[in-house]
């Protein structure tokens, strides 16, 4: 199952409450701030085993977020990669 999350904070927290093994989370829009390894502790500071977390690179660049500031386990995609994640996973849940 793919979760598309567009807000950090409660929306992402609620998503993490329900994920299970082999799920994939994609952070888009202002949720990409959750990829940053600050503030500590943050919503993503504890890695969930078996769950892959991606962030949308164009949204990172728009906000000037350098990958060097992010958790090292985050993976990155552009819009083409976003489409691939949608193709590889089903169902898709949008968390807004």
């Amino acid at each position: 199952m793919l979760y598309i999350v567009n807000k950090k904070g409660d929306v992402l927290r609620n998503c993490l409450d329900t994920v299970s093994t082999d799920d994939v989370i994609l952070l888009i829009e202002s949720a990409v701030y959750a990829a940053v390894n600050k503030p500590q502790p943050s919503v993503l500071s504890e890695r969930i085993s078996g769950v892959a977390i991606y962030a949308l690179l164009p949204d990172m660049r728009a906000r000037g977020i350098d990958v060097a500031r992010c958790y090292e386990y985050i993976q990155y995609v552009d819009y083409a990669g976003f489409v691939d994640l949608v193709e590889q996973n089903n169902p898709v849940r949008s968390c807004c």
Partner: protein
Amino acid sequence: MKISIQINASPYQYQAADTAWHFIQAAIAKGHKVYRIFFYHDGVYNAYRDSRPPGDERDIVKRWSGLQLEHDVDLVVCVSSAQRRGLLEQSVALKVGGYEQALSDGFRIAGLGLLMEAVIESDRHITFGA
């Protein structure tokens, strides 16, 4: 794969319409079929013909119209969401004295049935919200 898209947020105030647009461009470039875009909730505001952003900004409404023209993507605005929010079908506008040209080129107004038909026909249904 066949994809249907749902947009629930107003343009400019939320990034949803932008994210959806870039996603759709990428999907089409990869050879996927966008079966239909359904504008629901405040998403119906994406269809207002009279929207006139400053010249140095992207024109979100025109962008959708262009997508329909270039790639024949079906742009459907939910009739009940639209009516509540001030966007009337031409026949209704004629009857009540409203704006008959409210809808931008390439959009059409229809019921929720067209959303369900799209969802059933599609391999994926992706919602972009506020």
